[in-house]
């Protein structure tokens, strides 16, 4: 396809010269109209996606009285870093951030490790109840979170786990596991059985085949699954609020607790804090996006 495009595209110099008989065909008015409409649609969708981010940034650097100006100023005239300074000086927010990192990383690891074994089992082994178990894993996604919240609260209370990292990690993994399992099963499905048979002929045990042959091949998918679980653990609000205590509170409930009050919301400070706490996720995506895209699509099409 690359070759074909290269052949079809005229060289820039040739395009400028427009020799007789090779002139670019003039576009018809209806083509121009549809092209303009397409660009307008792209611009509107782009605005829809980027305007909230722009507004987050503008509010974060605006003094309090400007942030509340009505009608709002889309291009701010006064700037301040006071909101970022206040965030940096708030020790409690730092504690919440550490808790978020611990919980999100461990949720991610737990989800990937368990989902790898489950996905591999579903993909490469045939045993009684396999399909039912697969469907059961999928069915767990059907429950409303509120129902699970009350149930998990009762279970963790019985086991004395309320207020612990364990309660948060297990509850987040409840939601991340099904998607991770199905994502990784799809990826393992694309690994040819002949490869596993060749490994077996060479004397590799099933354990070794998974860890030294299959797992490296599925690494992009595992990273994608891990990233998904990390974001889920990083962003959760209601489970963290209900199951954590003062010492294990994560950022989302911590930020709400700090900035959204009975009578007023400190929007500029909240926006600055939101900007800072979203950076780890943005950085993770920037470094791992090629794995994410590859991992998400790897199991989508079977040869």
């Amino acid at each position: 396809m690359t070759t074909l495009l290269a052949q079809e595209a005229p060289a820039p110099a040739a395009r400028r010269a427009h020799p007789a008989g090779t002139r670019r065909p003039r576009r018809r008015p209806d083509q121009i109209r549809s092209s303009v409409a397409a660009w307008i649609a792209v611009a509107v969708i782009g605005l829809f996606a980027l305007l909230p981010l722009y507004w987050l940034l503008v509010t974060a650097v605006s003094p309090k009285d400007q942030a509340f100006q009505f009608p709002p100023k889309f291009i701010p005239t006064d700037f301040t870093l006071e909101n970022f300074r206040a965030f940096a000086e708030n020790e409690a927010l730092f504690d919440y951030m550490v808790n978020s990192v611990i919980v999100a990383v461990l949720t991610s690891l737990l989800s990937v490790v368990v989902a790898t074994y489950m996905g591999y089992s579903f993909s490469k082994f045939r045993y009684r109840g396999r399909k039912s178990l697969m469907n059961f894993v999928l069915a767990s996604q059907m429950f409303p979170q509120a129902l699970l919240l009350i149930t998990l609260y009762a279970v963790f209370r019985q086991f004395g786990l309320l207020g612990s990292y364990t309660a948060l990690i297990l509850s987040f993994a409840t939601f991340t596991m099904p998607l991770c399992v199905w994502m990784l099963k799809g990826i393992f499905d694309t690994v040819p059985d002949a490869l596993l048979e060749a490994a077996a002929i060479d004397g590799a045990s099933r354990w070794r085949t998974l860890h030294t042959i299959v797992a490296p091949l599925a690494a992009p998918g595992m990273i994608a699954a891990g990233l998904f679980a990390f974001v889920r653990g990083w962003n959760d609000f209601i489970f963290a609020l209900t199951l954590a205590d003062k010492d294990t509170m994560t950022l989302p409930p911590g930020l709400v607790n700090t900035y959204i009050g009975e009578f007023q919301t400190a929007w500029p400070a909240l926006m600055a804090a939101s900007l800072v706490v979203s950076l780890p996720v943005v950085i993770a995506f920037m470094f791992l996006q090629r794995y994410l895209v590859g991992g998400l699509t790897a199991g989508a099409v079977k040869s």
Partner: protein
Amino acid sequence: MRTSGIDRRTTLRLFGAATAGIAGAGALGACAPSGGSTDSGGDAKAKNFGFTSWSLNEEATKAEVNKIVKGWESGHKAKIKTTAYPYNEYLQQLTLKLNGGEISGAVHLDIAWLAAIAQMGKLVDLGDVAGEGGYTDVALTSGQYEKKQYGLPWTTGSIGVIGNQKLLDEAGIKKHPVTIAEFEDALRALKELKGVTPYAAATKVAQLKDIFPWMQTFGCTILDGDKVTIGDDASIDAVEWYKKLHDAKLIAKDVDRFDARALFGQGTVGFYDDAVIGKGATLATAKDKNLADAMVPVPRPVLKKGDDPQALLWGGVLAVVKGEGSDSAADFALHATSDVPTAVSYFGKTAMPPTTAKGLADPKVAADTFTSDWTKKITKTATPGPFWAYAKNAQIEEAVAKQVQAVLVGQSSARDAMKRARDEVTTLIKE
């Protein structure tokens, strides 16, 4: 024939698995902590106890509330375990954790939630303790449910009308309007000023419960025993009047409390509705730092001279959960709410008005003319929300608000909308 990835057998399996899962969740739910128990257990005389409040974490209040906690701990050689939830999530979290027996000691409650929490049967009757506090009558009332004192009033105020005296002067309004007719005249005078919204009344569903005091002003009782009176002539008159202000652009479209504060903060609003504490929130975002001098409490105009101005009671109480440390928690609640130096210091930092006669008479409190005027002119005749006693209070308020909004946008007549509101509310209070 298989036409997709999911065949009939798979679908049946999926449903089977889902049913099994729901049954499992139901079984686990059945194991969930029930509200049957009325006592969280433990030694009521224990020195250590818990304290749950949304104010422990909010920027505006946390330093002062934590100071009260630390002061008690050092003075009584006791340990208070503090827990905070955001205000908007507080009731949900408190209900879940009270049911689970996870919360003990003193709990901070919005007076609008007192009835719902008291109905759980977990709160101590503080009638004996309340007598020692010297609270004002209206404050004591805010902590009562079914004639029992479940809460000691920590702060008592009301939601009333705030005016911008500077704009009123500019519009030539010599005295604050007393009747509805005078109020309308004042709004029309304010409308003559360029760029001014005469009355930033709530017109968004989120705050349209502000219509209740206006309904009461027109003579609707809203609730008579268990009978909903919304839909009577008085309530229809009130909504039609609101619609008249809306159509005449004397009130603005799509305004809630936050919008009203932002607009008032820019000096472009003549009147708006807020709690006494709302003054601080408005000034925090105001550009004109002298706006505080122009803010005046205005008793809600009445239908005819001599009627009581209507206002919604607002405030917070400290309640005590039965069980571990409840005796010490009751002493702590009494100290936090009625000790004059503590209450005055709390007022100085948070503008939350004290609830005792001595606290209100303290020179530092009395010197704040806005608060003392508010207490005398507005809180004095304030009444509790008509549906606070019902667990579905929020849904009830929303049901009425939606019908009022339907009238404002011209989708319904006031008569039809209020009839629908009455039917919906009647259903909700019976559920």
